[in-house]
C-alpha cells in the first residue's frame, strides 16, 4: 500500500511541477493545489498506514495496542489543508486583481516582467483608490 501511495505522490508532484513551470499563472494555481495535496498524501504515507485500526484504547487497557492508525499525521494534514486553502484563496484573488489591472497572466508577458515601469515621482501610493 505504501508503495502505491508513494508512486501516486511522485506522479502528482510531477504533474504539479509541470503545471507550475508552464508559464501561465492560472496553471500555476492548479499546480499549487495539486502539489499541496501531494504533500498531504506524503505526510499521510510517511506517518505509517494502518488500515481499519482506529487509535482507540480498548476497555481495560492502559495504552494503545499496536498496530493502530497514527492520528498525528492526520492532525498535521488538517492544519496544512486549512493553511493551503487560505493561500490558494489569496493567490486566486491576487491573480484576479492582476489580470484586471494588466490584462495578462502569462508569466513571460513584459507587462508582468517590468515591475519598475512606473515613475516613482508619481507618489508612493496612487492618488485615487477604490473602496475594497
Amino acid at each position, binding site marked *: 500500500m505504501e508503495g502505491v501511495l508513494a508512486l501516486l505522490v511522485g506522479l502528482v508532484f510531477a504533474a504539479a511541477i509541470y503545471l507550475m513551470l508552464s508559464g501561465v499563472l492560472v496553471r500555476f494555481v492548479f499546480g*499549487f493545489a495539486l502539489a499541496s495535496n501531494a504533500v498531504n498524501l506524503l*505526510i499521510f504515507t510517511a*506517518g505509517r498506514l494502518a488500515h481499519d485500526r482506529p487509535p482507540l484504547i480498548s476497555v481495560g487497557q492502559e495504552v494503545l495496542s499496536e498496530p493502530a492508525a497514527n492520528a498525528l499525521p492526520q492532525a498535521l494534514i488538517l492544519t496544512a489543508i486549512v*493553511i493551503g486553502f487560505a493561500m490558494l484563496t489569496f493567490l486566486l484573488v491576487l491573480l484576479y486583481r492582476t489580470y484586471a489591472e494588466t490584462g495578462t497572466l502569462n508569466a513571460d508577458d513584459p507587462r508582468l516582467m517590468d*515591475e519598475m515601469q512606473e515613475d516613482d*515621482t508619481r507618489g508612493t501610493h*496612487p492618488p485615487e483608490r477604490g473602496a475594497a
Partner: protein
Amino acid sequence: MSMLLVWPILLPMLTAITTVLCRAKVGAAHWMALVGAALHLSAAVALLAAVIEGQILVAHMGNWPAPFGIVLVADYFSAVMVLITAVIHSAVMVYSRSDIESDLVRAGYYVFMQILAGAVCGAFLTGDLFNLYVWFEVMLMASFGLLVMGRRVSQLTGGIKYVTLNLVSTLLFLAAIGLIYGMTGTLNMADLHAKVALVPQPALVTAAAMLLMVAFGIKAALFPLFFWLPASYPTLPAAVAAFFSGLLSKVGVYAMIRMFTLVFTTDTGVTHHAILFGVAGFTMLFGVVSAAAQMEMRRILSFHIISQIGYMILGLSLLTPLALAGAIIYLLHNILAKANLFLASGLVRQATGSFHLERAGGLYKNNGWVSIGFLVSALALAGMPPLSGFWAKLLVIRATLESHHYAMAILAAVVGLLTLFSMIKIWAEVFWKPAPAPKDPGGKASVGGQVSAWMLAPVLVLAGITLVLGLCMEPVIRFAEIAAGQLLDPRAYVTAVLGGTP
C-alpha cells in the same frame, strides 16, 4: 516564568485584535500601534534579561510534556533575535505614523504589521518544526496583505513573484516535515537532535535536509533562489520595506542556522562545507554585482540584502565557534543597518520626491540629520571601522581564514569593498550632488523638502544603536560567543527541553 516566552508573541497579537476594532479611527490606531510596540519591546527586554541570567527558558504549551506538546524555547540566540525584532518593530511603528497614509491604516496596515511582528517572534521562539511551519505561514499571510496593500500595478506584479515562490517554499518545507516525521517519528527539534542520528538510512536524512535547505533558502533569498526579492521589496512603502528587509529574510537565515546546528549535523561534509559554503560565496557575489548595476535607491538596497545574507550563511557553513559568533553578530548588525537604510530611503523620497539616484540630490546641504542617519548605516553595512559591520565582517573573514579558505576570505573582503562602492554611489548622487532642477515646472519643489520628525527620529535612533554597537563591541562579541557555544553544543538545549533525558 514561562509566560515570559509567550508575551513577545501574545502582545502583538492582542494589539492586532484591538487595532482591528478601531482601525476606522486613524489617530487611535496610530497610538494603539505605538503602545503595542512599546509593550512588545518591554516583553522582549524582560525575556533577554531572564535568559542572560544563565538558563535556557522553556515553556510547554498546554502543559504537555516535551516531545508530545509544542514547546517554546529561548536560548541566547532566540532571545536576542526577539529583542532585535521588537526594536525594529518599535522603530517602524514610530516611522509609520507619518509615512503610512490614512487609507492604508483603515485597510488594516497596523493589524498586519502587528501580526507579522508576533509571527516573527513565534518563529524565533518555537522549538517544534511543525509549529515553525505554522509561524512561517502566519508571517507569509500577513506579508501578503502588506505587499499588495497599495494596489499599484507594480505591487501586484512584484507580489505575484513573492507569493508564488514563497508558496513553493512552504510546500517544500511541508514535504520535508513529512519525510522527517516518517523517519524519526518526532517533530520536536530537541528530540530530533538525537533521533536523526539513529535513522538507519543517513542518505534519506540528507535528502530531507536538502529539501529544508531549499525551502529556507527561498525565504532567505539565497543564490540562486533570490529573484523574488528585488522584484517585490522596492514596490513597498518605506516602513514596510524596512520591516521586511530587516526581519523576513532573516527569519529564513535564523531557521537555517537553528536546523543546521541543532538537527542536521550528521553529514556536515556535504550540507555545510560543500553546498552552503558554495551557495554563500555565490550569494555574496551575485547580490553585490547586481546592485552595482542599479540606479534606484531601493533596488540597490534590495540587492544588498542578498549579498549580506551570503556572509551569514558563510558563517554557518564553517561551523566553528568563531564563525557562528560572527554570523550572529552579522545578523544583528545587518537587521539594524538594513532596516535603517530603507527607512532613510523613505526620508529621501519625502525630501526630494524621488527614490531615483538621478532625480534626487542636495540632501547633505539641506537635510543634515537625514544624511547622518543614512551615512552611519551605509558605512556600517559596507564594514567601515569602527561601526558594527566592520566587526561582523572581521569575525566572519577571520573564521574563514582560520579554516584555510583563503579564496573565500578574499571574496568576502572584495564584496565588502563593492558594497562600499554602492553606498558611496548613493551618497554621491543623493546627498552630495546638487539637487537637479525639477523637470516639469508645475511639479512640487524638490529642493530642501522638510521631513517629518516622526520619520527622522527612528532613523537617528537606529543609527545611534549601530554606532554604539560598533563602539562597544566587546560585550556583544562575548554574548555572541556564548550564543554560538549553545548552538554548537546543544546538550544544554536538549536537556532543558526534554527534561534531563538527552
